[in-house]
């Protein structure tokens, strides 16, 4: 089992409980679509899984590491080495070029595979846009770069939070195809948050988040 989320609870300071004992599991190479109403806590759950934030109780075990035991540095190391994240927006580092963005995480983790990066770059279909800066790219192009960057380090788990939510249909289609292809080819597990049933249907499993719990 690559990922086990076990009865996790989370309440933001000053707010009502968002997660009230959510649980999911994910095998290596498997893909899972997480759906739910807006505000149901999908992003929260994803962020906790990605070691971006701490939770109140329960446990998340990722690739054998219990996240509740990690301090700030440990969480950062985990994000760097084992997971990759793609959000709906602002994934890229504005100050770096597309090429620099693409290799950033892989180099940070010390796992740069030049051939693989070249292949990914080619598959992104960006041509000579790689020397540009993110804000010079369209939204769809930016998301493609974000996916490329995520996959460049061959992460064990890709966490994607409505990566096509801000895109029109065609762009969304291209981005999704690219992501699913890359995930398949590199044997990466995928946890994808979406509110689109069509997208969810293309993944191995789905889970629905409601009332702070996951219904399979």
């Amino acid at each position: 089992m690559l990922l086990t989320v076990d009865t996790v609870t989370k309440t933001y300071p000053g707010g009502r409980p968002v997660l009230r004992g959510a649980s999911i599991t994910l095998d290596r190479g498997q893909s899972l679509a997480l759906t739910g109403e807006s505000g149901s806590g999908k992003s929260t759950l994803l962020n906790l899984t990605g070691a971006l934030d701490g939770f109140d109780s329960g446990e998340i075990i990722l690739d054998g590491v219990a996240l509740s035991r990690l301090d700030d540095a440990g969480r950062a190391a985990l994000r760097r080495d084992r997971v990759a994240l793609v959000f709906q927006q602002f994934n890229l580092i504005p100050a770096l070029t597309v090429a620099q963005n693409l290799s950033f995480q892989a180099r940070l983790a010390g796992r740069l595979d030049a051939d693989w990066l070249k292949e990914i770059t080619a598959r992104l279909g960006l041509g000579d846009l790689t020397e540009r800066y993110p804000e010079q790219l369209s939204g769809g192009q930016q998301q493609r770069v974000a996916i490329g960057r995520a996959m460049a380090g061959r992460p064990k788990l890709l966490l994607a939070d409505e990566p096509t939510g801000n895109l029109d249909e065609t762009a969304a289609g291209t981005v999704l195809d690219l992501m699913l292809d890359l995930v398949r080819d590199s044997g990466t597990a995928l946890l994808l948050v979406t509110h689109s049933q069509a997208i969810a249907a293309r993944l191995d499993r789905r889970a629905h988040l409601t009332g702070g719990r996951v219904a399979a």
Partner: protein
Amino acid sequence: MIGAALLALGSHWRRHPVQLVTLLLGVALATGLWSAVQAINGEARASYAQAANQIGAGGLDRLRRADGAAMGLEQYLALRRTGWQVAAVLEGEMRLGLRAVAVTGIDLLAYPDLPAIAESAAAAEIAPVEALTAPGRLFAAPALALTLQGEPGLPPVAATNALPPDTVLTDIGTAEALLNRPGQISHLLVLPKQPLVRTPLAEIAPDLIRQPASGAQDIARLTDSFHLNLTAFGLLSFVVGLFIVHGAVGLAFEQRRGLIRTLRALGLPLRLLTRLLLAELCLLALMGGAAGLVLGYLVAAALLPDVAATLRGLYGAPVSGALELRPVWLLSGLGMAVAGTLLASAQALWRLARMPILAAPGQRAWGSGRLRARSQLLLALVLLLGGLAGFALSGGLIGGFVLLGAVLMAAALALPPTLSVLLTIGAARARGPVAEWLWSDMRAQLPGLSLALMALLLALAANIGVGTMVASFRLTFDGWLDQRLTSTLYVTARDDAQGAALADWLEPRADAVLPIRSVEIDRAGTPLFVYGIVDHPSYRTHWPLIARSAQDWDRVMRGEAALINEQMARREGLWPGDNVELAPGWSLPVAAVYSDYGNPTGQAIVALERLLDRYPGTPNTRFGVHLAPERAEGLADEIDATFDLPVGAVIRQETLKARSRAIFEKTFLVTGALNILTLGVAGFAILTSLLTLWTQRLPQLAPVWALGLTRARLARLELARAVALAAMTAVLALPLGLVLAWLLLAVINVAAFGWRLPMYLFPLDWLRLIGLALATGALAAALPALRLYRLPPAHLLRVFANER
């Protein structure tokens, strides 16, 4: 509608209190430092003026007999009847029991504008008929007036605060009766307004010598250099403060664009809106300005005692250490605050006035950054060329200042493009993803920080420039003191007779007694002081010559040539090899030129016999006495005991030097304090820029954090970034500061005071300053970094959240 609009506009400040505080603090700091310097200068000038006005009419030249004796009425009349506008003065002492009181009688009618007279008469409400006709009136400070009122046989006394404690002022007619010296005149004041046609003094009264104004004007001229420094500092601080205001106003306007559009769409006319915003700015400026005045007052009050000590000791300029509140100062401070705020907001207002109602929110094109860099460089070049042209055209003091301003502004404008180039180079050479990001990110951050960095650049350059100038001055002056003050003791006799006795008496007791004799020659309106000296090795070995010729001393001593001071050499373009006309019909070749700091007038040195050939009546009252230093004190005491000399007539070289040096330490203290303050303002500018950039900063940082950098590391990097930018700015500020120092020493000083100071470099000071700059950057970035370090992850995550 206006009310609603005001409410809407004002709500911005309520939602962004940090911005409001930044803006107010910016205005306050700018106004504060500026007005502190103004207060110090104002206090000093007021003190000079008061000192000059106390009876002595220090700003006026005097005519007196060379032998020191009183002159008669006929001499006064002869001068008056040939066009000389002079006022007769009779001075003497009146004994009241054991106490001696100085009596000054002035022809009240000849110079009623003399402030002491005008103030006294006005305060005491004395009618002219009472002051001018028997028995007359005496004016005195209140305490003395009380004493005098008890004395029988004196004219009525009027009390006034315009006079020093031990002096009685009265009409000359009353004074001659009081002192029992009918028809006598001690000296004549040469009044400011003289007629076009006037007989030369030598023809009417050859036995009279003209003494240049002592006091006010000399002091003012000597201290001008010091005040110039302070003013330069104040102005720079002001500009640095305005950078803060500019940043804060720009941001506030930027953030209110939407609101302003809405208001205009709702029908609020643009003109009314602009006026409302102007009114808002003025109000903020007044609030900040008021706070700045308080700040300025505190700073001035803290610094003034040191400044006063400096001026008192260095130039004998009487400055009281206590600060007075002057209405002019308050008003001009508030005026500067408003003007400065409006100036700093001009760009924002202008943009606003030209903003179309319906334009989409501005999407910044990537290319505009480079375009802007290029136009900034171009503007800097134009400014620099303009400054050079201005200097070439007008030259002198104004030209120097134009050039100075142009250089500073050009450098400030060129800073961001230069830094951008440096950062690009850095990014290209960076190894590793984090380093690459760091460099690139710095460059991306540059536009937001460039104003603050410009402020830092100016502050640092000013510090280096003024610091170098003051330190060069100290070093030069120190060396010059050693060279010029070679005698162990300096003695001044009351008159020639006493001088002769003194010289005879000293001869067997000292290694050498060198007469110091001079005449003043009126040379086409400008006075020239010619000194006659006797040959002595101390001159040859120590005299500070800055331009020499072969056998210069030999030729001077043989009477074949003259030495002239630097002021005269520069003013008239006379250098060794040229001929100088000392007086009509008296020309000598220039043998050498010597430096003569702090002296506004021309000076020449010739062999004593030569001087006496021409001016046999040259007074012989001053002597330089050479002897072993350890015997100086004993001999000084002996002189005091043997001769009836006025206070301060015997001066020891050591005391003189020690006093001068102590004073420079004070100057340093003041300069140092202002250094720290300007740097502080620049640091604050950086801090506020970083704080205002904060919201734009998160989208830059959040992805990096998400990719696996801890907040602690990011915070450290933030610090490093600020320090690196400060360091680069500091390194760039160094040459700028040296240029500034050179301009101050070689251009402005020469134009203003006529002498050029050699420039000395103080690399240790630069290191200290660069260290200070780094500390400034680090301190400014500390708060934002700490904030980042403590930022809950949930906040960072909001960057990615859909609801944004």
